[in-house]
Structure formats: structure tokens, C-alpha cells
């Protein structure tokens, strides 16, 4: 049975439809990503899953519970890190952790958790004095303090520097290794590629695709792109004559060729037959970025 089941979820704020028929299922022990441009309905979806919003239509089940009706029971086993959630400035890190730990029937060891998140030395610091990265780590610690079976992390690395981001990713991987199911909301492609087993791509309140990051990348038009400087002149028509080549663009002495998956081998074979070498050669496989642009309306407008 899936840990999280969302079926035809619909949520409207006045005239604005934030989420329109979103469905997906998250399995035990996976890191499931919700990916999409800003304003796509990611946070609303997560807030419905966390019991903060009541869906207008459709159903949400988390560990077999209704997030709204069974809110308090749900929060015993689902840890949530929300965007823009603050704390009283004058409470110390350790005090906050002990306070939230007391709300759970089976809390985690607070000292061990703080050590794991590198906040141990900040135990006596007041919340106000923490840096952005430290506040973010404290938010993750609070999501984990109840020994949850599921954690929901909304944009957890937004505002972190690249170093802190990488550390946070390692932390999420550790959490998963301890058997916890992770629902991760992000608009960073790199984050989704690095962490997620599967990704739901959401755009304008609808699920556009659910797949592995690799599977999604392959849907993004697929294919390859190569750029090079030929050692001797070559005609566009010769390149376009190859069935694998879709487009040829020249930028000064550089040629950019795009096409199907066998593009690189076809073009290099042609160059070899002509005894032309490809200088400054760069090859790109289509990525999740391309899929994102290709599959979302956001990309089509640009």
C-alpha cells in the first residue's frame, strides 16, 4: 500500500485554482520529488498532505489517515518542514527541540539529532542569532524530532549556499537510509536529479508527468547536442543529409548540431570519413532541465 496517496486533488482560493486534479502515490522508503515552476501548486499540494488545507475535492491519504480529520494523529508520524515557519526569537535551540520532542509519544534523542545536524554547539544560542542555514537545519531537525515514518520537506535548500546545500542533501539521503519515506518539494533540477527516486512534475495545478529523473529527462525531447570547431570546412547540407541530424547552427567558426540519440556517433563518423577533426568538442545529453522546459507551460511561453 502506498504511504501517501493523492487522488484528483482540487484546491481553489477564491477565483484562483491552485491545484487542479493532482494524483500521485508515494511508496514506502522512496524519496519522491514534487517538481515544478513557482506558483505551480506545489506548496498547496504539500499543505493539503500535511493537513493545513482542506481540499475542495479529491482525496488525500497519508499512512491510511485523512490529514484534516486525523490531523493530530497524522503529525505523530509525519514530520513536516514548511516554508516560512518561524519560532519565538528568544528561545534557545535546545529549548525548542525539547519542547517539540515533548509533543510526541515516541520522540527522537534530541542531543543525538542536534549532533547529526551539526547544531550541537548552537544548543544554547537563541533562535534569532542563527544563520539562515542553521535555521533551515533546525527546521529539518524539528521535522525529524518525532521519529516520523514520513517527512515532508518544502523547498528545504532554498536560500542555502552551495556548500550547505550539499550537506543538506547528504542529510536527506541519511534520513532515507534510516527507512523514512521522503516527500521533497523543489524547483532545483539538480536537487531532484541527485536525490529523488521518482518525480512528479507539476505545472499550473496539474501533474504533467510522473517518472524517474532519468525517465523524465529522456522525455524532454530526448536526443543530444554537440558543438565543435571543424579543422576543415564542412557544408550544412552534408550534416543535414545525415538522418540523425535535426538542426545545424553556426556561430562564427563553431557549429552546433542537435538531433537524435545516435547523433554523436553519426556526426563523428562523417567527420572521420572526411578526415576532419572536431576541435573544442562539447556534447550534452538532454537533461531534466530540458524536460522541465519542454513539459511545462512556463517553458513554452519563453
Amino acid at each position, binding site marked *: 500500500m502506498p504511504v501517501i496517496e493523492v487522488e484528483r486533488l482540487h484546491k481553489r482560493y477564491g477565483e484562483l485554482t491552485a491545484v487542479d486534479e493532482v494524483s500521485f502515490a508515494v511508496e514506502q522508503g522512496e524519496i519522491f520529488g514534487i517538481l515544478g515552476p513557482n506558483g505551480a501548486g506545489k506548496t498547496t499540494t504539500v499543505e493539503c498532505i*500535511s*493537513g*493545513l488545507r482542506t481540499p475542495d475535492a479529491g482525496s488525500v491519504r497519508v499512512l491510511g489517515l485523512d490529514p484534516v*480529520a*486525523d*490531523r*493530530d*494523529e497524522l*503529525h*505523530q508520524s509525519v*514530520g*513536516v518542514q*514548511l516554508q*516560512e*515557519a*518561524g*519560532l*519565538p*526569537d*528568544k*528561545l534557545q535551540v535546545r*529549548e525548542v527541540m*525539547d*519542547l*517539540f520532542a*515533548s*509533543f*510526541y*509519544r515516541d520522540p527522537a534523542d534530541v542531543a543525538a539529532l542536534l549532533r547529526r545536524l551539526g547544531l550541537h554547539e548552537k544548543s544554547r544560542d537563541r533562535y534569532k542569532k542563527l544563520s539562515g542555514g542553521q535555521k533551515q537545519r533546525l*527546521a529539518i531537525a*524539528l521535522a525529524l524530532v*518525532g521519529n516520523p515514518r514520513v517527512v515532508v520537506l518544502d523547498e528545504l535548500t532554498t536560500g542555502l549556499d552551495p556548500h550547505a546545500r550539499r550537506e543538506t542533501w547528504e542529510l536527506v539521503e541519511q534520513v532515507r537510509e534510516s527507512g523514512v519515506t521522503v516527500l521533497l518539494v523543489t524547483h532545483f533540477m539538480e536537487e531532484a536529479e541527485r536525490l529523488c527516486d521518482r518525480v512528479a512534475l507539476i505545472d499550473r495545478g496539474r501533474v504533467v508527468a510522473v517518472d524517474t529523473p532519468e525517465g523524465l529527462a529522456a522525455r524532454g525531447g530526448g536526443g543530444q547536442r554537440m558543438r565543435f570547431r571543424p579543422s576543415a570546412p564542412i557544408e550544412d547540407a552534408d550534416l543535414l543529409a545525415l538522418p540523425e541530424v535535426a538542426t545545424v547552427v553556426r556561430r562564427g567558426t563553431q557549429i552546433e548540431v542537435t538531433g537524435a540519440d545516435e547523433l554523436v556517433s553519426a556526426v563523428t563518423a562523417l567527420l572521420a570519413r572526411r578526415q576532419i577533426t572536431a576541435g573544442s568538442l562539447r556534447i550534452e545529453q538532454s537533461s531534466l532541465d530540458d524536460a522541465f522546459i519542454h513539459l511545462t507551460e512556463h517553458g513554452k511561453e519563453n
Partner: protein
Amino acid sequence: MTAVTVAAAPTARPRRRMTSRGFRALMGMHVKLMFREPGVFVMILLPVALLLVFGLIPGTKKPEVSLGGRSTLDVYVPTIAAMVPLLIACSGLPSLMASFRERNALRRFSVSPVPPGGMLAALVAVLTAFTLGGVVLIVLLGTAVFGAHMPTDLGAVISSFVLGFAAVMAVGMIAAALATSSGMAAGMGMPFMILNFFFSGLYVPTAELPHVFQTIGGYVPFGAVMDSWSGQGALWQHLAVLAGYTVVGGVVSARVFRWE
């Protein structure tokens, strides 16, 4: 007293429970924060200062015929004592909760297993103890130091005072459940507080008010409290009015509670 009422309200929905350890920890947090941001102590210091001023004016201790043989101080000690619960219920409670909401701290609690009723009840419990301390301090100062006489029927006085406090606290809880900023909290609590101040006789002794105002005063929590002290009207009727406020405020506030 009030805390019990509030904690009982969420049990209408059976699954909404919080651990007793969690409730104690939440109360502990409020106590810590009160000492680190001691603005709320003004709500005791202000009435105490007022009592000191009254107590040090020589003429206030003479029995007055117009007050039925009681001295001005005798009349004002209960009124000044009533300022503490009114300030705390109408201003302290809503603005403390609103400042949590304003800083998005309630959003953080909203994804923990703490129910809205528990969130309110913990703060109400701490403020109740705080109020009790303030009222006891003022009554002791007034009677032991300045020699004021308390009303004779102590049972009616204490029961109506407790019920009156529960009633204004319950109304303050509605403001605390809804106010999204400290300013809004003040805007919601202040008119109710001034109404209660008026009918508790802070501005004008209630005995000097026109009859129609005295009747209205019976339906305002601290008007009802003062009436039951002076023996005006039926005691059971005043207590019923106060209990009505408490029940409605307790139930409504837990239902309309906003996390953000």
C-alpha cells in the same frame, strides 16, 4: 478553571489530544518567554501603582455616607484588582498569541501534534496563574497595608470574580484565536476592555450611573461581577451570564483558531 474549560473543548473531536508532557512543556515555554520579554508585567505593575497612589492619599480611608459607610479605598480595591484580569484577558492574551502568529511561529506548531485548544489552553493557564498572583498582591496590599475592608460575603465575591475572569478570558481567547497581528489584537480586545473598565466602576462609581446603564452593566462580565459584590440583582443571574460568556468563548475560540 478556564484552562479546564478550554482543554475540554477539543475533546468534542476525539482524536485531537496532546501529551500532558507536551502541555507542561508548552506552559514552560510561555513562562520563559514572559521573563525574557517582560512587557506583560506592566499589567500587574500598573494597577499596583494606581493602588499605591490611592492608598497614599489621606482622605481615601475615611468612611463616606454616600458610599454606604464604606471608604473610597474600600470601593476602589476590588475595581483596581479587576484591572489585572481585564488587562491580561483583553490585551495580554490576544497580543501574545498574535505575536506568535505574526512571526509565523504558529505555522511551525501547526504541523506538530498540538491541537488549537491545547495551544490556547497552555497560554491561558500560564496567564491565569499570573493573574491570580497579581490579584492576590493587590488585595493583600489594599487590606494589610492600607487597611481597606473587603466585602463581607466572601463566597459570592470569590465565585463571581473567578467566573468573571473566566468570562473575559474566554472573550480574549476569541481575539487570540483570530488576531493576525498585535495591532489587530489590540483593536479587538481594547473596546471590550474599556467597556468592562467602565462597568467595573474604574471611571465612575457604578452606583452613580443612570438606571438603564446599571441594567446593561449586569450583562457585561465585570459589571455582573461588581453587581454580585454590591448585592444588586439576583446572584444566580449574574453567575449565569458569566458562565455563558465562558462556554461560548471557549468553544468558539478552539473552532475558529487560525494558525497563520
